[in-house]
């Protein structure tokens, strides 16, 4: 079996339309790996690709693009929420120490209402994204085990291992980290690197998994809840920060909310970045959601 023909044959499959490849590429590659690939095989694949391009009705576009679009929408909402959560956590440092904020909030009920709205809607978004994430992740694992997909399992396994290593290392060096504030920056960078790497691995695994369109359509509901809750949390955060600065500028300044780059990213610029990140990630989630809803509506029509 001449390898040069095999490599070319695998490359030629890319000539087929994307929607067709989403459905048939993997199994065709498996056939090629067992087949005696000859020059005539290459010609046959080229003619086959041309044939599918010329017959639009042969492209499983509607069904498979729909599943793909819904899957990409779910991934986009998930990734947007991860970034949103980082901004959300960073925002919480303003109320640290909590007793001090409670004293301010008791004299300004609007602050308490806005803050509670941020927290409650953030928690709702978190719970909804956990539902979507767990259902999709567990379905992908079960499918990967059933179909013996080593490539998918390796990605999920690596992501889980990476997170576990980080958690274990954090617990081991807990006392050291508490005692050395100068390492907190490095620790945060390592945390972000682990988060990004684990997310990329999981997303790759999800993209290699075939989900039923029905399951993905059900996921639209928690995705919508996530997007809406993120939007409410973002607006409440903006109102809360503006009111906090207007109601009690002394407290705001004491919490590194003074104008300019006071306290590095802890200053007003830092909080502006937090609000911008929350707004952008919310916009991303809503765009992904609308895309998913459109796909869902087209499918139902």
């Amino acid at each position, binding site marked *: 079996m001449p390898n040069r023909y095999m490599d070319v044959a695998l490359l030629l499959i890319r000539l087929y339309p994307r929607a067709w490849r989403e459905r*048939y590429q993997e199994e065709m590659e498996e056939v090629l790996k067992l087949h005696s690939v000859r020059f005539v095989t290459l010609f046959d*694949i080229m003619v086959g690709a041309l044939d599918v391009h010329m017959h639009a009705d042969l492209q499983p576009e509607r069904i498979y693009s729909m599943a793909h679009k819904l899957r990409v929408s779910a991934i986009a909402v998930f990734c947007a929420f991860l970034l949103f959560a980082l901004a959300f956590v960073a925002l919480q440092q303003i109320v640290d120490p909590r007793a001090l904020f409670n004293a301010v909030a008791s004299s300004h009920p609007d602050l308490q209402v806005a803050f509670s709205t941020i927290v409650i809607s953030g928690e709702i978004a978190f719970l909804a994204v956990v539902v979507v994430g767990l259902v999709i992740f567990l379905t992908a694992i079960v499918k990967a085990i059933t179909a013996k997909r080593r490539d998918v399992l390796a990605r999920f396994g690596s992501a889980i291992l990476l997170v576990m290593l980080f958690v274990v290392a954090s617990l081991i060096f807990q006392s050291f980290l508490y005692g050395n504030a100068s390492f907190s920056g490095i620790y945060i960078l390592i945390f972000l690197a682990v988060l990004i790497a684990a997310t990329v691995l999981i997303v790759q695994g999800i993209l290699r998994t075939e989900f039923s369109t029905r399951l993905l359509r059900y996921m639209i509901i928690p995705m919508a809840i996530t997007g809406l809750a993120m939007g409410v949390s973002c607006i409440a955060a903006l109102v809360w920060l503006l009111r906090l600065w207007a109601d009690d500028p002394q407290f705001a300044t004491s919490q590194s909310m003074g104008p300019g780059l006071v306290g590095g990213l802890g200053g007003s610029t830092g909080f502006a970045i937090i609000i911008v990140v929350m707004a952008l990630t919310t916009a991303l989630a809503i765009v992904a959601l609308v895309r998913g809803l459109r796909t869902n509506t087209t499918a139902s029509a």
Partner: protein
Amino acid sequence: MRKEIAELGRYSDPSLLILSSLASGPKHGYAMMEDILQFSGTRLEPGTLYGAITRLEKRGWIEPLAAEERRRPYRLTGAGAAALREQLATMQQIVATGLQRLSLA
């Protein structure tokens, strides 16, 4: 039904071979190619195989089963069995007529 098989154009022969192969049970792509080679002596190339599979699946004559690793088996549907039966009956009639006329010649 015969008209529909004729509509498959250059894929009508490979389609008939695939339907005949799946008549003995579900098979994935490579198993079909091997089976077809064994019972008909025809070596299907992957491009032709998947051109025919796409058309047969589209017509509902075969259906995919859950993937096993990266291989996906297919099985013959009721409509596929009916189409195959009708096509084979026509061929049988052609064979009988041809043989009869040859013996007379």
